[in-house]
């Protein structure tokens, strides 16, 4: 009951923020889709963080830590922290070019740099294809949480959550998304902190909780960890993967355009590792502690270990608040994905939109995409794979392949459109071949091979197709 009241209260605040953002948004594409490039350090940092931290952060981390141990903290914490260097490498240039040339979407910049509609479309298609499953994953997470907390079925929970997201994104655009991200970011940080403190106290203290888990399952405290998951190749792969994959999320890439100035980007870069250093440790601790606490989780349901632990070891109002925090993590990612997908589809597809404004077209797409995500939820979810498995096998690898093209577009004057197109196509094909073990991975993630092949193809084809001077 407390959870339902908190969720209703939380949803009302989100809708009000969306409504308020609507009042403050002018009817220009730049204002609706990019908040007129006015996000200062505070909003930019929170929106970059809340957008990136998702269902995966709350539920997936704890689930993976439950099965494989503390190694999960290493690959996520440091890997995401050092990724923030890309706020300089990619973010700064994207922000500058966006301001000068009024770019709104990522494919717009890439296509314009090489004067190629084909490359722009290809870049957009890859971003869209690999983001839709990720959007659906957020909705699935929300549905599962609501089902766990109430008698409402997970499908209904997912649909209601998507509807609320759709409403405040529709009305508030990027301002709505950014402002709600600040609220959602704060809720998730406070909720995770409160959760870990209460669980630790009720397990007899921090050290006692660790010791109890160590006695039951000591391999979780070493690497390669449970199921020998964290082999050196996997460790290396993940440390590198986030650097290439995270900035290629369209919702992160688009946010580089929204920065008010370079100071905002700098501040976000410095604060990012600080937040992940502790925030990512908390769900991992709870996941590992579940062993010492005697919590039994069925195979395939590891992602529910965090709700189970918090339900068992915290008072009911804290439990309800923590679950709202998890919901905030899911929703802050989903709203940004929804907006960035609709922005790309409304702007990057070369169709005649004379009879309808670009903003209206974007809004129609937000509605269509929301329904599409719901259909994906109902029709395509395989719980045996888990959030981690679903995401790593599709979104991260597929998007990371775009990074070499982006860096070449920003820095390498000898890069050609043919080099970039080939790089993306061969990169994606190789990800597929390695993912399904048609080629040997030697223990590395398929994404690493995809990135490597994308770089090699980009260089070779660019030199082969370089115009003669």
């Amino acid at each position, binding site marked *: 009951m407390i959870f339902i009241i908190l969720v209703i209260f939380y949803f009302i605040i989100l809708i009000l923020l969306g409504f308020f953002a609507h009042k403050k948004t002018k009817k220009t594409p730049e204002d609706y889709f990019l908040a007129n490039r006015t996000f200062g350090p505070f909003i930019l940092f929170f929106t970059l963080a809340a957008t990136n931290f998702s269902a995966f952060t709350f539920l997936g981390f704890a689930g993976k830590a439950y099965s494989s141990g503390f190694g999960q903290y290493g690959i996520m914490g440091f890997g995401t922290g050092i990724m*923030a260097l890309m706020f300089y490498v990619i973010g700064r240039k994207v922000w500058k070019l966006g301001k000068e040339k009024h770019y709104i979407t990522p494919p717009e910049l890439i296509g314009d740099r090489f004067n190629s509609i084909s490359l722009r479309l290809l870049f957009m298609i890859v971003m869209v294809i690999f983001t839709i499953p990720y959007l659906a994953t957020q909705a699935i997470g929300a549905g599962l949480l609501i089902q766990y907390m109430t008698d409402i079925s997970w499908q209904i929970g997912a649909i209601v959550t998507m509807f609320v997201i759709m409403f405040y994104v529709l009305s508030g655009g990027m301002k709505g998304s950014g402002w709600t991200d600040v609220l959602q970011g704060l809720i998730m940080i406070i909720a995770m902190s409160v959760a870990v403190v209460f669980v630790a106290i009720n397990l007899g203290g*921090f050290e006692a909780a660790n010791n109890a888990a160590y006695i039951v399952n000591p391999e979780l405290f070493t690497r390669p960890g449970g199921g020998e998951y964290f082999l050196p190749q996997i*460790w290396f792969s993940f440390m590198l993967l986030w650097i290439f994959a995270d900035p290629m999320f369209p919702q992160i890439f688009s946010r580089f355009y929204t920065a008010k100035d370079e100071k905002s980007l700098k501040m976000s870069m410095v604060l990012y590792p600080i937040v992940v250093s502790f925030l990512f440790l908390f769900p991992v601790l709870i996941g590992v502690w579940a062993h010492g606490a005697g919590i039994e989780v069925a195979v395939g349901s590891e992602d529910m270990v965090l709700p189970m632990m918090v339900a068992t070891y915290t008072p009911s109002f804290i439990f309800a608040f923590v679950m709202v925090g998890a919901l905030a993590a899911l929703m802050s990612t989903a709203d940004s994905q929804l907006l960035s997908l609709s922005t790309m589809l409304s702007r990057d597809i070369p169709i005649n939109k004379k009879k309808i404004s670009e903003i209206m077209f974007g809004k129609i797409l937000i509605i269509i995409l929301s329904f599409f995500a719901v259909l994906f939820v109902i029709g395509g979810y395989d719980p045996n794979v888990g959030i981690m498995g679903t995401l790593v096998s599709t979104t991260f690898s597929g998007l990371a392949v775009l990074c070499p093209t982006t860096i070449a577009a920003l820095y*390498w004057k000898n890069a050609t459109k043919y080099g970039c197109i080939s790089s993306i196509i061969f990169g994606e094909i190789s990800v597929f071949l390695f993912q399904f073990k048609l080629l040997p991975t030697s223990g590395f993630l398929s994404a690493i091979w995809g990135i490597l092949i994308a770089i090699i193809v980009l260089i070779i084809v660019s030199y082969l197709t370089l115009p003669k001077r």
Partner: protein
Amino acid sequence: MEEKELKKLPFWFPTKRNVIWYFLFVFLFILSLDFWNWGSSDPMLFGLPFWVYYLLFLTLFTSLAFYGFSKYYWSKEK
């Protein structure tokens, strides 16, 4: 190095201005591949293995490195 020679270098090649930052970030990345800690959970502090603290402080140090980078390199870039 002459400006002409500098222009011939690949875009990713470290220059005199950024070489320290270049190697610092590569060094931090290498430090994150702490394979020497594999198979061990000792010593433990408050029940947590040493290598977890190591990664935590490495992440915090990365933030410090970013602060230095943004103050002394990024700010001076045109």
